[in-house]
């Protein structure tokens, strides 16, 4: 391989201008690929983080209650008028078992049983509609880390303590340490102490969420000993739908993934990924054609030299390697420069751009782009290299 690579490098150095121009072309192409891909990946992970920062990946709920209609006897026709049933707050049956089973599934990262239902918060004459969330804090924190969003007081639920949203606190004029009366239907009520105030940044949640412990929520909502919701996070975000289906089959419960509740977002993400792939494909294609055309010209220019090398005993396979190597070297160096340039562009964007979010450049992107460009370079060199290796030495030497 020594002589082949030596000839390849010398040829490229001799055709400096050509080499430099195509290198610039490859670099720009790879830089565009790296920048666009990093930008889209950053954008997507930012959107996902924002969306899923305040919700679980999968919610498991009791199945909907349905009317059971007795089938009509054979030979008779039944006229049925059916009103769909209102969905009561119901507990998940044997929820401790369900929780323990979910804990054992390898694709699930965290499991948190929740008691959730509507209520009113009252201070003096003011009523506000709220959502009560009865949680087991260590488990719930693995799903949504509320303690990092506390702006006043501390994250503490249980023993009459509650944590409420910033907007609700402002609306009711509450601060940490104040008392708050919660009233749910059927005359159930409790007075709790506001231990902490959180601000997630999502208006609806900051205005409505009141965290208490499981027991308090159970007694407020009349679900003694029960829970009506299990929140889950999964290891592979985009496998959430499959995991949800599996849980449904396993438990007979209703399991909804974030992909189902945010179908439009998933659609948008998929379209973005597709458009990135299309851009990458066409840029790679034009880079490949660039390399192929430069090498094709080089083969024509060096026809006579190829003939002489053949006369001196170089084998066809060696000539093939000389040109494949040139393609590979062009791809490798061009893409290494391009990837660095793309990385620099991302850093400039992070530093001087709109600063809405930080773009990370994953190392596999740099490595991948370089590897792909090298392979593309070799593939692009195939046709010219093949032509060079097939040159008839007699014709080639006479070639002027």
């Amino acid at each position, binding site marked *: 391989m*020594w*002589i082949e690579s*030596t*000839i390849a490098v*010398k*040829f490229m*150095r*001799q055709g400096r201008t050509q080499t430099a121009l195509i290198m610039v072309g490859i670099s720009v192409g790879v830089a565009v690929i790296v920048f666009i891909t990093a930008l889209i990946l950053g954008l997507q992970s930012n959107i996902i983080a924002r969306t899923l920062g305040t919700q679980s990946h999968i919610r498991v709920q009791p199945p909907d209650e349905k009317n059971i209609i007795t089938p009509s006897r054979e030979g008779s026709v039944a006229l049925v008028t059916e009103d769909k049933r209102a969905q009561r707050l119901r507990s998940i049956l044997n929820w401790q078992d369900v929780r323990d089973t979910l804990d054992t599934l390898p694709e699930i990262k965290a499991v948190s049983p929740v008691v959730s239902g509507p209520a009113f918060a009252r201070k003096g004459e003011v009523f506000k509609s709220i959502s009560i969330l009865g949680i087991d804090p260590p488990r719930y924190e693995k799903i949504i880390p509320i303690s990092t969003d506390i702006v006043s007081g501390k994250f503490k639920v249980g023993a009459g303590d509650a944590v409420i949203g910033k907007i609700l606190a402002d609306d009711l004029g509450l601060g940490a340490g104040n008392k708050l009366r919660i009233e749910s239907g059927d005359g159930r009520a409790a007075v709790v102490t506001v231990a902490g105030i959180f601000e997630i940044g999502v208006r609806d949640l900051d205005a409505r969420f009141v965290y208490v412990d499981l027991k308090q929520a159970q007694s407020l909502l009349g679900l003694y000993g029960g829970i009506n919701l299990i929140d889950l996070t999964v290891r592979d975000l985009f496998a959430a739908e499959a995991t949800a289906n599996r849980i449904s089959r396993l438990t007979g419960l209703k399991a909804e993934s974030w992909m189902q509740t945010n179908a439009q977002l998933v659609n948008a993400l998929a379209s973005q990924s597709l458009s990135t792939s299309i851009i990458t494909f066409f840029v790679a294609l034009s880079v490949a054609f660039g390399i192929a055309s430069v090498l094709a010209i080089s083969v024509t220019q060096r026809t*006579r*030299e190829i003939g*002489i*090398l*053949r*006369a*001196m*005993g*170089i*084998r*066809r396979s*060696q000539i093939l390697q000389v040109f494949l190597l040139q393609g590979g070297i062009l791809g490798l160096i061009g893409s290494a420069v391009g990837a660095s340039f793309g990385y620099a562009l991302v850093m400039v964007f992070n530093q001087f751009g709109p600063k809405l979010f930080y773009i990370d450049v994953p190392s596999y992107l740099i490595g991948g782009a370089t590897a792909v460009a090298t392979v593309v370079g070799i593939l692009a060199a195939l046709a010219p290299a093949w032509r060079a290796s097939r040159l008839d*030495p*007699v014709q080639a*030497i006479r070639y002027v």
Partner: protein
Amino acid sequence: MSDATAPVLSLVDVRKSYNIGSPNEVEILHGINLTVQERDFSALVGPSGSGKSTLLNIIGLLDQPTSGELYILGQPTREMEDEARTALRGDTIGFVFQFHHLIQAFTALENVLMPLMIKGGKPKPEFVERAKNLLSEVGLGDHLNKKPDELSGGQQQRVAIARALITRPALLLADEPTGNLDTKTAAEIFALFRKFNQLFGCAVLLVTHDARLSTTCDRTITLVDGQTV
């Protein structure tokens, strides 16, 4: 395998046709019989279009005869695969062309080393030494690291001769090696062939137009209309 007692080159009824099978099929060489022994110093002469270059290309294993057999050091070559022909060519034959044909990207020294590098990769120190000696022999000891475009035509042809000799070939073929040079330089180049013929014992076969030079050869092979006369 090569046979030490066999002639360097032997042609038996070698014919070459072009456009075979088409109405304008034309036979260029009509049954050439030729033997070249070790140390032979022969000139191949003949008018333009007599088939000199075609014959030289066949002898140099760059082209194949349509029929007949060509033996290099006793080895028949007609049935050889391209790889084997290429290897035999690299091992036993040195070429010098009319237009020196150096590889422009390499220095004079590297050009001379090229046949060895093609065969064995990075050259051993003794090979580099051999190449330097050869370049000194052709009078270019001070131009080792010059690129071809920094050398005159005569100097480039000297490099080409050194390159043809680096593998110590049994047969040195030259196609109008002086055709592109002035008379004085041509005589010097010719003298170099003679010198190496005596020094290394390699057989030399020169195609030339120059009648004066051909008369100084030990033997003159004349080709007329594709036949030796």
